């Protein structure tokens, strides 16, 4: 866990209102475990708090971030040019544990799929079979460049879209409902809160893991700004998470 000045290697649009940034940050990259995140200083001097972003990939001394435009911080990040330097703090959070090779299902929605990127690669490299399921609101949101981080490693990649012209219509939750979940050893999810709340009862009792997004103050475990209720008491998303057992989270109280 360090603070690192990271040079922008590339910054490209990745679907509607989102960008894929690749940053040169060898120290953070080398320490990153799947599901961890960085705290990025955005528009320093104007915006006070850092913004948390999952690390989509960490190869070759770089970290890749999938940034959706949702406010001032993300807008600023999406407009960074090559060679500009950003202030990162990381890697942070507990990350996903790596289980023995088996059959794995990854369920991602929106920008949440970023936290599953490294996991997908490592599970596949370890000899596991990985089926990836991703939901988007519209076809325009599908981030081609981000999907590469999955399609090169997974056994299957299913995309589903809620609105607009697309072969598979519906939500990621609909897709999970149609799956034979018995065949999976591990299930991992990340996405918007509505999606996670809908998945929780479907995946109950299966030991599914979920990576949560949260508004954070520090990202390092000191401010208690991101505490969520769990069956084992309040837990900090930034420190004891962002990865939790799905059944541990008290979804009704979030």
């Amino acid at each position: 866990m360090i603070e690192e000045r990271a040079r922008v290697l590339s910054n490209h649009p990745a679907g509607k209102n989102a960008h894929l940034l690749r940053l040169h940050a060898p120290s953070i990259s080398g320490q990153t475990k799947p599901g961890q995140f960085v705290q990025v200083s955005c528009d320093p001097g104007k915006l006070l708090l850092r913004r948390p972003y999952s690390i989509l990939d960490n190869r070759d001394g770089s970290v890749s971030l999938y940034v959706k435009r949702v406010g001032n911080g993300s807008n600023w990040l999406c407009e960074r040019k090559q060679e500009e330097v950003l202030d990162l703090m990381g890697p942070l959070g507990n990350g996903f544990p790596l289980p023995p090779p088996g059959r794995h299902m990854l369920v991602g929605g929106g920008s949440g799929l970023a936290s599953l990127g490294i996991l997908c690669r490592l599970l596949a490299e370890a000899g596991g079979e990985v089926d990836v399921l991703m939901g988007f609101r519209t076809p325009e949101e599908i981030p081609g460049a981000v999907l590469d981080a999955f399609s090169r490693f997974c056994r299957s990649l299913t995309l589903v879209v809620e609105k607009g012209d697309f072969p598979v219509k519906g939500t990621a939750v609909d897709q999970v409902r149609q799956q034979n979940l018995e065949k999976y050893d591990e299930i991992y999810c990340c996405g918007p809160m509505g999606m996670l709340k809908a998945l929780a009862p479907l995946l109950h009792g299966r030991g599914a893991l979920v990576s949560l997004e949260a508004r954070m103050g520090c990202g390092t475990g000191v401010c208690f700004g991101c505490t969520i209720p769990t069956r084992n008491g309040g837990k900090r998303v930034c420190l004891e998470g962002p990865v939790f057992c799905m059944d541990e989270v008290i979804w009704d109280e979030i």
Partner: protein
Amino acid sequence: MKSDLGVELGGLGRLESPVLLSSGTFGTATPYLKMLQDQPVGAVCTKTITPLPKNGNPQPRILEGPSSLINSIGLENPGIDAFVRGFEREYASLPFVHIVSISANSPGEFVYLVERLNELRTPRAIELNLSCPNVDSEGLAFGNSPEKIGSVVHECARISRFPLVAKLSPFQSIDPSFALAAQEGGAAALALINTIPAMVLDIHQFRSALGTLSGGLSGPAIRPVALKMVYEISHAVHIPVIGMGGISSGEDAIEFLMAGASAVSLGTMNLVKPTLPSAICACIHDFLVEHEMENVGEISRRFDGLQSPREP
């Protein structure tokens, strides 16, 4: 010339750095402590501890504004029993001087907390959080008159093995009466200011934008307010004042030291940049050298308000 960044904080003794870390923004979480390694920190203040464990407030607890942060954490903490049990393991081994922050609902509870902390060996001081804006009736209830503040401090000082720091809210710093009462009561130092009570509404949902109705405002936006209070109060009392409120650079820290603070403390910016103390100390050091001063205390002695004519 060798410049000394150490400061004498009255009853608290000497601290090796004038930069402290404020309650609620220092913690013992591993990622944070790694960032803090080797930082020149004079002392750290624990999260505020209450008699019973507190779960804290509902989400959202954090809102960012222009140069500011509003929080409504709600003093989430494990309570005094768990704190005392874990203290040696969690704090005593840290390479930092530590101050324990406490808050309670009544003078009797404050005294109880001080009694419990008397069991410990290593704290340098106890900070009485007389002013948390986030907890109904806690702190503020009996913090509304100088007499009550003086009496709480006095009750605690009678039995405490450790020097006491009275942390005051902006409302208790509007004039020196609370500070003087705390001094009379036996406080060894003052810490000011705490966050400013504040609200933000979500007009589309007809409700507060926080999980509670209001929170506490901090960050660079409150700095000039804090500076004015530190100036007024440090010139009215004879005990040292630890100045805080949005300090985010060496220049900011020097401003507080010049206005009369004996030391400064970082809160909000400590969340954003845990490596700030080294940058601040480097800046203070250069300032001392540039102006041929031997120690931090000289900065305020050179301040002459508006006495000398301005350079054209």
